[in-house]
């Protein structure tokens, strides 16, 4: 990475507010990270705005409708082997699957920087497998709701906006997870081949940033759509 050799050590030794002023008043470079990482962060900030638009739109329709909002705790209940329906259990399991995948991803980043290629690849594949599991559970959830008669324009229990918000928000998030699974597998394959032995393993951290972001969005969807 050429940037690290051109960086002035004295400049970087300034942290906090002084460092902020120094970084923004340099001639050449503001962000002292690999360019791919800065670009990923800028993409994630823009993606934040997309998801925020959906969630703020959800808030607006939910506040403004006078129709009763369906009870998520009952809609997403599931019974196992003829038991009483357990409230929200599928969503709880999906949350745990995604958090587990975030953990394996964090470890993959760590082993990448330790140049332990085997562990990095295995952990990335585990992350992708958990992501695929999450998407599978989401497909199951969609098919259940479609079976109940939930449509983007109506449902049997209350405000029709429930369906539009559900399919839009979880669909867009699921698309992000699916894309992330593909991204992870592509990068894992290149790590396996040893493509990054020379340039270093920042790419694993960059992939990780995307994956953690997908988990981060789910934290907000879980709270606002399913719990509140």
């Amino acid at each position, binding site marked *: 990475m050429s940037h690290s050799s051109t960086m002035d050590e004295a400049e970087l030794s300034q942290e906090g507010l002084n460092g902020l002023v120094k970084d923004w008043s340099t001639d050449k470079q503001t*962000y*002292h990270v690999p360019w791919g990482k800065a670009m990923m962060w800028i993409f994630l*900030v823009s993606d934040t705005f997309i998801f925020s638009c959906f969630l703020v739109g959800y808030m*607006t329709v939910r506040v403004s409708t006078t129709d009763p909002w369906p009870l998520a705790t009952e809609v997403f209940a599931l019974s196992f082997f003829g038991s009483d329906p357990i409230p929200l259990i599928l969503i709880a399991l999906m949350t745990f699957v995604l958090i587990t995948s975030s953990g394996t991803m964090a470890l993959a980043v*760590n082993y990448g920087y330790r140049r332990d290629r085997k562990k990095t690849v295995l952990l990335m594949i585990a992350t992708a497998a958990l992501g695929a599991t999450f998407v599978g559970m989401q497909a199951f959830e969609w098919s259940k709701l479609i079976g109940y008669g939930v449509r983007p324009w109506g449902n049997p229990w209350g405000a029709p906006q429930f369906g539009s918000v559900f399919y839009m928000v979880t669909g867009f998030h699921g698309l992000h997870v699916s894309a992330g699974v593909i991204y992870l597998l592509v990068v894992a394959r290149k790590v396996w081949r040893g493509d990054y032995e020379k340039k270093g393993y920042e790419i694993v*951290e960059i992939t990780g940033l995307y994956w953690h972001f997908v988990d*981060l969005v789910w934290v907000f969807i*879980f709270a606002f759509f399913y719990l509140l």
Partner: protein
Amino acid sequence: MSSASGQQHPLGIYLKVWILLFVLSLFSYMVDYLHVQGPLRWTLVLLFMALKAGFIMAIFMHVVWERMALALTILGPPSILLLLILLMAIEGNYTESARVQYLGHDPFAAPAHVSH
């Protein structure tokens, strides 16, 4: 400076945060499972949400170890969303009150229960 040579930190901190995220998720699920309602539900759900989001960003996404120039680029622009949320909440409440006042809608109708 860690970001120059890549973000390298001991494994222990990731494992601790991982466990913490599990516990916080379990807590949020318990809020629903134990039928906590009203302002307490909102407080708890939003508190656990903020803690989870904070730990994912700070530790898993390494924001706490980044230089302030990058951290502010990440956190600054989205903070303007708070204004959008406020404005849309005002607007949504106004729309609802208009529907109640002029269209005679009942704002307290209960949703139908779900039969599995």
